[in-house]
């Protein structure tokens, strides 16, 4: 049961399987295997089983069912679920119980999906390995000594290991696509504004987007369909109709021009990753696509821009953790200001402190022009590069990450090295573009490799079709890791 995709689980229920037995099967798998992975932070069996019983009852009564009826979903612990602990991977929110649901959670409930539990993540989504979690380290199901990537590493590991058929992640600089690539699954970041951020704990508000993690493109399309759409509670949510992405997915995009940015195939790209991606590009060519070399001349500045813009926004967003309204409050302090500073000093982990400091520095008097404003100007140049590129091609293709999954601990001592693992994914966030990572091979050590595809804003439909063209011709997405129960 736990090997099945969302589409197969929906079909199984039409054939007589119950949401209850499906949910119970995934819960059993979690309890058996997650001791090896630590993908989940909280699992509420009773809550999940009650939802499953409700879906079965609706089916029995002949009620109209949602598009994800009876399909379990693992949700990154950054999305608020009313009445359920939501920590964002931070000790400062160790005991936080939100009074409301995130919009995405409301939509999942309306779709009759089963909320299995909340997954581990880098604290406040700041990280690329899930090692910055305030609670536990998640392991890669393909090699337990390696990272699943991050920051949505818990959701990605859960899907890859068959602990959940679908996962929800958030992507501020690659946090859906990078862990998807490192775990051998599909990860999709929608256009900025496509999915409401209401109830998503904020990191970099001009960059954050919620999106699906899944075994294949169809499942990702289905989950996107369930969560996308306008929400008046997020002022950046865009009021445009949501196409039925999962329908017409097998339509071929013809003619198709695939842009290959030469900057994505330079220094720092692992040879095995490059080879797998080049083979993937040749597959498009064999299906009649035109491969066109393009240039994104400012892409080498993306990481620098990102670490000024995202941290500046974070330093402002995280000002709300003051020990007054919610979250941790220090026990000992001299006065109000000292209480705030101590509560934050005790509650935040090292990487969050580093980013709040960097963002504060970039916004501080005397530095704001040289750093924050300068970064926003270069952000414009980066977006202009993409606009120019999309006048010459339908999609942009390249590697999702410069290397396959790295070892736990390998980059924790060097923040810059960790930041550079997002070098190919950050551009889509800065420019607000949709991007997807699909499995495109394995290293000789058996580690998954991801192919990244990006499209112009709101071209999710075309992007998914192009991704599907590759997936249909290959078998990489059907590989599953063998995860042993802890010994």
């Amino acid at each position, binding site marked *: 049961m736990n090997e099945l995709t969302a589409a197969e689980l929906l079909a199984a229920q039409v054939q007589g399987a119950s949401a209850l037995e499906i949910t119970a099967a995934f819960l059993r798998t979690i309890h058996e295997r997650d001791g090896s992975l630590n993908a989940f932070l909280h699992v509420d069996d009773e809550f999940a089983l009650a939802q499953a019983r409700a879906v079965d009852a609706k089916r029995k009564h002949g009620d109209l069912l949602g598009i994800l009826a009876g399909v379990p979903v693992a949700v990154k612990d950054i999305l608020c679920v009313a009445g359920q602990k939501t920590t964002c991977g931070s000790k400062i929110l160790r005991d936080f119980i939100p009074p409301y649901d995130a919009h995405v959670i409301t939509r999942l409930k309306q779709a009759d999906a089963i909320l299995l539990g909340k997954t581990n993540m880098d604290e406040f989504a700041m990280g690329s390995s899930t090692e910055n979690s305030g609670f536990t380290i998640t392991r890669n199901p393909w090699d337990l000594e390696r990272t699943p990537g991050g920051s949505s590493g818990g959701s990605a590991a859960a899907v890859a290991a068959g602990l959940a058929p679908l996962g929800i992640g958030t992507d501020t600089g690659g946090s859906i696509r990078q862990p998807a690539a490192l775990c051998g699954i599909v990860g999709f970041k929608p256009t900025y504004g496509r999915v409401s951020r209401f109830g998503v704990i904020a990191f970099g508000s001009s960059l954050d987007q919620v999106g699906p993690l899944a075994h294949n493109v169809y499942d990702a399309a289905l989950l996107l369909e369930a969560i996308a759409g306008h929400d008046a509670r997020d002022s950046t949510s865009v009021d445009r109709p949501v196409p039925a992405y999962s329908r017409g997915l097998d339509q071929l995009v013809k003619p198709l021009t695939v842009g290959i940015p030469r900057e994505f195939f330079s220094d720092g790209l692992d040879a095995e990753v490059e080879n797998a991606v080049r083979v993937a590009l040749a597959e498009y060519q064999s299906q009649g696509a035109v491969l066109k070399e393009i240039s994104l001349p400012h892409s080498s*500045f993306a990481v620098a821009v990102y670490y000024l813009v995202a941290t500046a926004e974070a330093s402002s967003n995280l000002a709300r953790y003051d020990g007054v309204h*919610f979250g941790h409050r220090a026990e000992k302090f001299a006065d109000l200001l000292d209480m705030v500073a101590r509560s934050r000093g005790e509650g935040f982990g090292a990487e969050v402190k580093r980013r709040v400091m960097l963002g504060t520095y970039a916004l501080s008097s005397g530095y704001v022009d040289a750093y924050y404003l300068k970064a926003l100007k270069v952000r414009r*140049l980066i977006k202009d590069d993409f606009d120019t590129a999309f006048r010459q091609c339908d999609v942009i293709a390249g590697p999702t990450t410069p290397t396959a999954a790295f070892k736990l601990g390998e980059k924790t001592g060097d923040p810059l090295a960790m930041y550079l693992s997002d070098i190919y994914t950050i551009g889509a966030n800065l420019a607000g573009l949709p991007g997807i990572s699909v499995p495109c091979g394995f290293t000789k050590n058996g580690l998954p490799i991801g192919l990244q595809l990006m499209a112009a804003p709101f071209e999710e439909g075309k992007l998914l079709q192009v991704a599907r063209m590759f997936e249909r011709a290959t078998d990489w997405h059907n590989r599953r890791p063998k995860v042993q129960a802890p010994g």
Partner: protein
Amino acid sequence: MALPLEHVRWVAHLARLDLTPAELEAMARDLGAIIEYVNQLQALHTDGVEPLAHALDLQNVFRADELAPSLTVDAALANAPARRGDFYAVPAVLD
């Protein structure tokens, strides 16, 4: 190059972050390295480039001025570390 400790202390004050002496030292080193890295932007010519704060071409969005349900006081205060009556409780600011 590490950032001067005095400067790190000032930024920590602005960020309302209480850092231990060891954290301040590490921060001076890490921030110095990151700032050195982001300084590559200074080489780019950006005169006349309009800053891009946001990828969407959005203007201010206002909701209709209508009454709508909101959280009850108890729900809003449920996560407060300290509460007094219907208020968040904090140490006295003025004596």
